[in-house]
């Protein structure tokens, strides 16, 4: 079954996911156009990471459909799934670098293991990508544990773009970084999109969202409650979005605080 929206690169239709009694995604609908950068904002625990993991096949939705390039992907397996995953790059919140490998092998991992490229060629590409994110060749030989948080994020970004993927996911790309390093990461994310890559980022950092997004969507209680161009977020007319972007404790969004 093909997707209706032919310009959509990624499309989620009525995606539901629950863990035990907790409903995380409750019929989520979302479209990311080809070459677009969409940022999904929302509070902690609203299901942003679960949404990304469903698209990547790390989690299987309980209901709904996910289309990528018009192909329904929730039931993919074996080699078809491997081929599907080669379209993606992913920057994890904590970078998720492999401790047992030096930095350059982390960056080259997808090329060597996922695509069967020779180690020498993959190593050259890894150093080239590390240079793109502002890291010198000396860093390539270090262990991930020897790097600062900001450097780990940059290595994670180099790994995400190593295979020139069609779609890149950024999971909280600036969380835990100082404002200057956050801006460096934002600039690098903007730079990675010069080749027309489609990007989906999830964050609650509004400064980052305004800088890297073409469009912003807000996720609340498992559904997208607002979706529009970045420039319109300050005039969304949605009280939930207004409360979130202004960081007000008072409003329709009630924090679940246990006494």
């Amino acid at each position: 079954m093909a997707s209706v929206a032919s310009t959509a690169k990624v499309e989620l239709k009525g995606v539901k996911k629950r863990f035990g009694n907790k409903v995380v995604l409750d019929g989520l609908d979302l479209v990311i156009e080809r070459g677009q950068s969409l940022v999904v904002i929302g509070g902690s625990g609203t299901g942003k990471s679960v949404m990304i993991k469903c698209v990547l096949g790390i989690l299987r939705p309980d209901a709904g459909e996910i289309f990528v390039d018009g192909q329904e992907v929730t039931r993919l397996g074996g080699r078809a799934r491997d081929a599907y995953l080669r379209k993606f790059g992913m920057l994890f919140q904590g970078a998720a670098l492999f401790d047992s490998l030096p930095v350059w092998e982390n960056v080259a991992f997808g090329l060597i293991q996922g695509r069967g490229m020779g180690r020498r060629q993959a190593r050259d590409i890894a150093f080239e990508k590390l240079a793109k994110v502002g890291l010198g060749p000396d860093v390539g030989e270090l262990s991930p544990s020897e790097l600062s948080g900001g450097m780990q994020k940059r290595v994670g970004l180099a790994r995400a773009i190593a295979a020139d993927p069609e779609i890149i996911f950024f999971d909280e790309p600036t969380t835990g970084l100082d404002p200057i390093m956050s801006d460096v990461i934002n600039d690098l994310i903007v730079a990675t999109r010069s080749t027309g890559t489609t990007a989906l980022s999830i964050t609650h950092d509004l400064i980052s969202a305004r800088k890297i997004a073409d469009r912003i969507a807000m996720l609340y209680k498992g559904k997208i409650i607002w979706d529009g161009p970045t420039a319109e977020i300050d005039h969304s007319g949605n009280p939930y979005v207004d409360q979130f972007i202004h960081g007000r404790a008072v409003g329709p969004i009630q924090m679940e605080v246990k006494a």
Partner: protein
Amino acid sequence: MNVFAHVGRATIGLLREVGRLSVFTADAISSFVRPPIYRSLVLKQIMRIGYNSLPVVGLTAFFTGGVLALQIYIGTARYGAEQFVPTVVLIGILRELGPVIAGLMVAGRVAAAIAAELGTMRVTEQIDALTTLATRPIKYLVVPRLMAALISMPILVGIADCIGVAGGYIAATQSLGFTGSIYLSTTVQALNHADVLSGLIKAVVFGFLIALMGTYNGFNSKGGAQGVGAATTNAVVSASILILASNYILTNIFNFFNF
């Protein structure tokens, strides 16, 4: 009523766990024959599981063999049957104590290490990162460890057998007044291929169980540092219990077939 509910919940939980373990095991075994085979990872794990376990297994086997000779002597001396000490030590080490002691030592060392490593990879999203890099975690993380354990354990047990018998020899000649040449010739005469083989078959089964429990518990750990700790404990406890239970079953099977 509450008692029934409690028993029911526990039963469902147990069945769910058995189901999960069965699916995990089937997935791991079916991945054995599917390419790619990560030979370098298998070799690396053989070094970790086999070679690095040699000191602890060797020392334990040596002292177990020595103690076995001393204890058997006490029993046989009551009936004037001290000449059977070399034979009983040999059979005890080859059939029982060699594989079981080596199995329990490796379970404590290796199952814990595997569970801690994979558990940390799980909670830091490194396993998810493997998936996004088009690499199957079962293939990359689980299969090399299972293969390495299957190869390493019989070799370890073979070495433990030799060291255990040597321990018995030293105890018998140094503390019990046995003549070295007579002890050795009795041992060689008593050597039976079925005794050796039954111990090695047990070693293969124990190796599989150790690696399976380590990988399964690590792979499914959750909840941060506490979850990794729980996974490590579960891996060691479940591997040890399974080793002792399967030892009983295998011994019964061997007895049934007069092997």
